C-alpha cells in the first residue's frame, strides 16, 4: 500500500463485511503522533479469532487461506515507530487503532483521504459512516446520516453527490502545515 488511506479503505471494508450499520473512521494528528481509528458495530470476533487475526494466514474467506489487510496495516504502523491495537467483542463490534510518528522516514503519506472516504460512501448500502479528521488544529466531521437527511429520496451513491462530497472533504481538511504533511 502506497498510502495510509488505502489501508483505511481496506480495513473499513472488513467492517462493512461484518454487517456493521455504523463505521466510524477517525484520523487525528497531535504534534508528532498520527492516530487512525476504525470502529464498527459489526459482528465482532471471538477471543480465539482475535488472537489470530494479525496472522496473514488467518482469514474469513473460504476461497483461499490468506488475508493481508490487517497484517499490512500492523506492519506499516510498527515500521513508522507507532503501534497497532485491535479490540473486538462478539456481537458488539471491533475497534482497530494504529499510530504513526508523523516525521518517521518509513511512514507512508496519508494520501487521498477524500477519495478514500467517497469510495466507501459509494457502497454503503444500508450502513452509515462517520468520518472525523483533526490535524494542525483544525477539525472536520462528515456524518452520512446527516447527508442522507438532506438528500431525502436521492441515493447517496449517485455520482453528483459523490463528487460533491469528495470536493467538500478536500476543501475542509488540512493535510499540510508549515512544511509538515500528512
Amino acid at each position, binding site marked *: *500500500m*502506497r498510502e495510509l488511506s*488505502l489501508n483505511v*479503505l*481496506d480495513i473499513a*471494508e472488513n467492517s462493512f*463485511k461484518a454487517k456493521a450499520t455504523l463505521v466510524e473512521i477517525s484520523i487525528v494528528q497531535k504534534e508528532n503522533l498520527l492516530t487512525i481509528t476504525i470502529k464498527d458495530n459489526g459482528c465482532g470476533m471471538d477471543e480465539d479469532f482475535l488472537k489470530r487475526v494479525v496472522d496473514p494466514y488467518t482469514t474469513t*474467506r473460504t*476461497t*483461499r487461506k490468506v*488475508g*493481508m*489487510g490487517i497484517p*499490512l496495516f500492523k506492519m506499516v504502523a510498527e515500521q513508522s515507530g507507532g503501534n497497532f491495537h485491535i479490540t473486538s467483542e462478539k456481537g458488539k463490534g471491533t475497534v482497530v487503532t494504529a499510530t504513526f510518528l508523523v516525521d518517521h522516514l518509513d511512514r507512508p503519506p496519508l494520501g*487521498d483521504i477524500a*477519495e*478514500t472516504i*467517497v*469510495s466507501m460512501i*459509494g*457502497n454503503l448500502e444500508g450502513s452509515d459512516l462517520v468520518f472525523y479528521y483533526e490535524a494542525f488544529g483544525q477539525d472536520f466531521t*462528515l456524518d452520512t446520516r*446527516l*447527508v442522507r437527511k*438532506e*438528500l*431525502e*429520496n*436521492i441515493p447517496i451513491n*449517485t*455520482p*453528483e*453527490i*459523490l*463528487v*460533491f462530497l*469528495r*470536493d*467538500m472533504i478536500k*476543501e*475542509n481538511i488540512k493535510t499540510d502545515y508549515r512544511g509538515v504533511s500528512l
Partner: protein
Amino acid sequence: MKSIADIKAIREKMQSEIIMRDNKDVEEIRVVVGMATCGISAGARPVYNALVEEVLKRNLKNVKIARTGCLGMCKLEPIVEVYVPNQEKVTYCHVTPEKAVNIVVNHLVNGKVCTEYLVGSEE
C-alpha cells in the same frame, strides 16, 4: 467552502431529473470494481473514482458503479467488470484511471468493448 447545506440545491436539481428518468424506463448498466486488499493495493481506488467522475461528466443516468471483493485473479488487478443487460459480462484487467475513462466512453457510451484491455489480451 462547501458544506452539507449545499446539498439541498443539488437535491432539488436532481429530484426533477429523477422524475424524468423514471418515465423513461431504461435498463441499468452495472460496472463493478474489485476492491479487496489486492485490488486496492494495485490501484483500484483511483479507477473507481475516475469511473464515477466520467459517468457524471457524461451525464449517464443508467450506469451504476459498485465495488466488490477479490475476484480471484489478484495478479490482474485492478479489475473492472461491465454488465450490460442481455449481453455477456465483460472483464477488464490492469485498469488505470485513463483506461477507465476509455471504458466509459467506448463501452458504456458507444457500446464498443475495449478489446485491448480484456483478460488475456494484455502483453
